[in-house]
């Protein structure tokens, strides 16, 4: 898939009437009930809402992991909802970085090798060492995941996600398994990446306080967007308390 011609002009994501239904008939669960949304490029966007409100489902569809039942979803000028599996794989490979709640590092690879896992297949990767430096783990590049703390593992995961220089970074509860100090450090890394590389960051979280660092906060309820709030003033991650 070619790079978007002028990514700055287009919003990173655009959806119209996006729905997702699991199951059929009476047992059907409506995870998304018609979502219309625009995510401008280069912003940090936080998706908030109770469990089952549809925020993770939206993230999965925008991340190319799941398919919508109906409606359209665009990444810049590419229609995600029309892509075949193979195209979605290339989309994830070339444009998207993922940060998971449970890090999902390969236990058999060192920190640096985990990053290389991605740089080996990416188009225009940064140096793995530099990615680790960015998350402050340059010194621990040769450690295996089992030798790292939870926060360190999550930072390796972020380094792995940004090393391909993605257009978008998807984070599903990135601090969910971390204590608050470590969590703040992780959020700082995400903010820095957004600042330094202009990467659009989409973050799903339960921690409402996290919203303070976002450009934009989207509240979910019952499979639909309740409201979208633009933060006039953003709080640096270090000052977030939860």
């Amino acid at each position, binding site marked *: 898939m070619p790079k978007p011609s002028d990514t700055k002009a287009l919003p990173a994501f655009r959806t119209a009437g996006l729905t997702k239904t699991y199951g059929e008939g009476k047992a059907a669960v409506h995870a998304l009930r018609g979502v219309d949304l625009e995510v401008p490029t280069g912003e940090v966007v936080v998706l908030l809402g109770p469990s089952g409100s549809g925020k*993770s489902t939206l993230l*999965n569809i925008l*991340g190319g*992991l*799941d398919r919508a039942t109906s409606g359209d979803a665009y990444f810049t000028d590419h229609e995600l909802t029309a892509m075949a599996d*193979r195209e979605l*794989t*290339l989309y*994830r*490979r*070339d444009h*998207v*970085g*993922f940060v*998971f*709640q*449970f*890090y*999902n*590092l*390969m*236990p*058999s*690879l*060192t920190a640096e*090798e*985990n990053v*290389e*896992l*991605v740089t*080996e*297949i*990416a188009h225009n990767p940064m140096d793995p060492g530099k990615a680790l430096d960015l998350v402050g783990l340059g010194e621990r590049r*040769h*450690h*295996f*995941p*089992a*030798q790292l703390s*939870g926060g360190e*593992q999550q930072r390796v995961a972020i380094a*792995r*996600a940004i090393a*391909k220089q993605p257009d978008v970074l998807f984070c*599903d509860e990135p601090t969910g*398994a971390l204590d608050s100090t470590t969590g703040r450090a992780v959020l700082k890394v995400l903010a820095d990446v957004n600042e330094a590389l202009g990467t659009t960051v989409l973050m799903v979280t339960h921690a409402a306080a996290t919203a303070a660092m976002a450009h934009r906060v989207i509240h979910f309820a019952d499979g639909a967007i309740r409201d979208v709030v633009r933060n006039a003033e953003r709080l640096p991650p270090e000052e977030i308390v939860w």
Partner: protein
Amino acid sequence: MRLLSPLDRKLLRDLWRIKGQAGAIAVVIALGVMTLVMMSGIVNTLEETRDAYYDRYRLAEVFAPVERAPERTLKRLAEIPGISAVESRVTGMALVEIPGELIPIRARAVSLPEHGPARLNDIFLAEGRMPNPDRAEEVLLLKGFADARGLKPGARLSATMNGARRGFHVTGLAQSPEFLYTTAPGELIPDDARFAVLWMSRASLAAAYDMEGAFNEALIGLERGASEAAVLDAVDRVLDPLGGLGAYGLADQQSNFFISEEIRGARSTSVSVPPIFLGVSAFLLYIVINRIVQAEREEIGLLKAFGYTDWEVSAHYLKLMLVIAIGGAILGSGLGIVSGRAMAGVYQEYYKFPFLVFELEPRSFVTGLAISVISACAGGFGVLRGVFRLAPAVAMRPPAPADYSSTGQAAGLSRRLLDQPGRMVLRRVQRQPGRMFGAAIGIATGMALSVGMIGVQVGFNQTIDLSFSVLDRSDAQITFTHAMSDKVIYELARLPGVEEVEPIRYVSVLLRHDFHDHRGAINGQLSEPRLARAMDAKQRPLPLPKEGIVLSTTLARVLDASPGDTITAEIREGRRPVLYLPVVAVADSLLGSPAYMNIDALNGALNEPGRVSGAYLRIDEEAAESVFRAVRDMPGVAGIGLKEDMRDAIQSIMDSGMGAMRFIMLAVAGIVTFGIVYNAARIAYAERARDLASLRVIGFSRAEAAFVLLGELGLITLIALPIGALMGYAMAALVSAAFSTEVYSIPLMFDAHTVGTAALAVLVSAALSGWLVKRDLDRIELVSALKTRE
């Protein structure tokens, strides 16, 4: 009241979740139990049926052939202590001519009792009617021969008896426990189509063989508990002055010998091969269960956190294994009964039993179930240990990454050569060498099974090839009615189309060494025969010196004799000398259990110089027909056997008799091998599903993610191949020994072809398993990677 506790419902759901794997293990166990139940059922059924057949048709326990004994001798035999019944009969050799057949067929004519049913050796009239005692031309024909030749009651045939040619009318077809197998004299291999048995009225037969008022064979039944050896001695003492040819017991009766050897072979196969299958299944179950429990660490922690005791949790997992093991055992028992019954039916037809006493071996069910349960419990020990060690808190924490730091940094060559997926494969193997080795051993065991079973297939072919292409280079074998002057050899050599002639002298003999004896024949041959040869294990021809005797491997084993030992040979013909012969060599014969001597030495010992009882011929194919015509019309010729026919006969015995079991075993070995490889793939997949989903999420294509999974399977498979080859050697030795009988030996075949085929089977299994697992990988839910472990 709830029928199922929550844990039991979890058990059922777990089983459903791992149904593919549980099914594969259960099938492997089932196949092991199936072979056990089937084989022992067949052996039991054959033994019971044979014994019932012998009993119902009153098969004699002692046979006493004699040149000619007056009828009154029978009374003297009846007085011998231990004898319960005596019957006399007249038998004689005949040549039967069948329209359209160039070569006449050797036959044995047997007299029917003059009044009422036979007291011994009764017959079963399968079709048609009994001959009218007053009609000399009416005969019964052995059903096996009639079927092989397409003859029906009403058929007419002519036979030469004692030099006179007569026409006969077949009134019926008969079966007899005495002729389950029929073998032409001088031949090793039974063949329905090439040896006939005719039953006819005693008067008519006695007239043909000058036996009026006399008999030439006594049939003897023994009292319960009587000593057969004592009776044999006593009978010989009575008949010797009349030209007794040596009384012998049922064990030496040809047909019984063959069927008993088949059953004995089947029994040895049934006790040695199924346990191998069961052992493999047990090992597999152990490995798999261990790994399933490893993967369930969190659930175990959770259950403990809920307040379930260690014992309750252990019992839960033990139940899971027992359900699989017992399920497999029950399935196997069912399959064993069904296949045993089907195979017994096939064998009933093959062995020509008029009825079948289907009898399962109850012990086989118990053994099968016990081995399955024990292996499940052995796996259970690992479970118990794991459960007791596990802290409930495990469930509360996110899964900690497995520690790979011990595998060290990638350095040097590995750093340059391997990409990250390659390293993932290699490190996993490095980190858990024990587990990987276990998986490799599992696959190697499967391969060893295949090596053993393929080796046996090759061994059967080798037996035939060696016997009929290397040892015996003749085209046809001629037997004479009696030992003739060796002038006949020159006559044969002069026939146009005969390229080479080699004399042979057969003498029936009782060989003894220490406490072992064997009734058979000595083949007297030229000192350096060219057509029918004795060879050593390295396929070098063995010369036959003027002194001593060469024994076949089978015979050497039966007599427990080796070169240097002296054996006793009691010749049962002519002046009946007793010879003391040094064993000079052991010949690697794969068919029967022949003994070889120099023909001049043998004739010299008998004081009958220049005598031959048969000849091997090499014939120009073009002239074969004219040669056979000429030979047929020569006086004293009892029969001509074509090597091709003999080859076909042994092939058919190997493929339809107990040897046919090898095909079933090969199929089972194939399925088990596949089951093992497939399980290894499934386990690897189950353990890595989350990593693989993560790889897919971060942009790895299906093929790239599959490499990480299949690379591991491939590596384990490659490690397994050489181990499997080594284990296969032992397996091949075990299995070929189990399939060998005194009728044919199966050599240990462990060559590149065998190992290569087995390796190919493993690789194909691996490829197929890989493909099946990759299908799951292709369907993996990517979102699952984002969640915590399930």
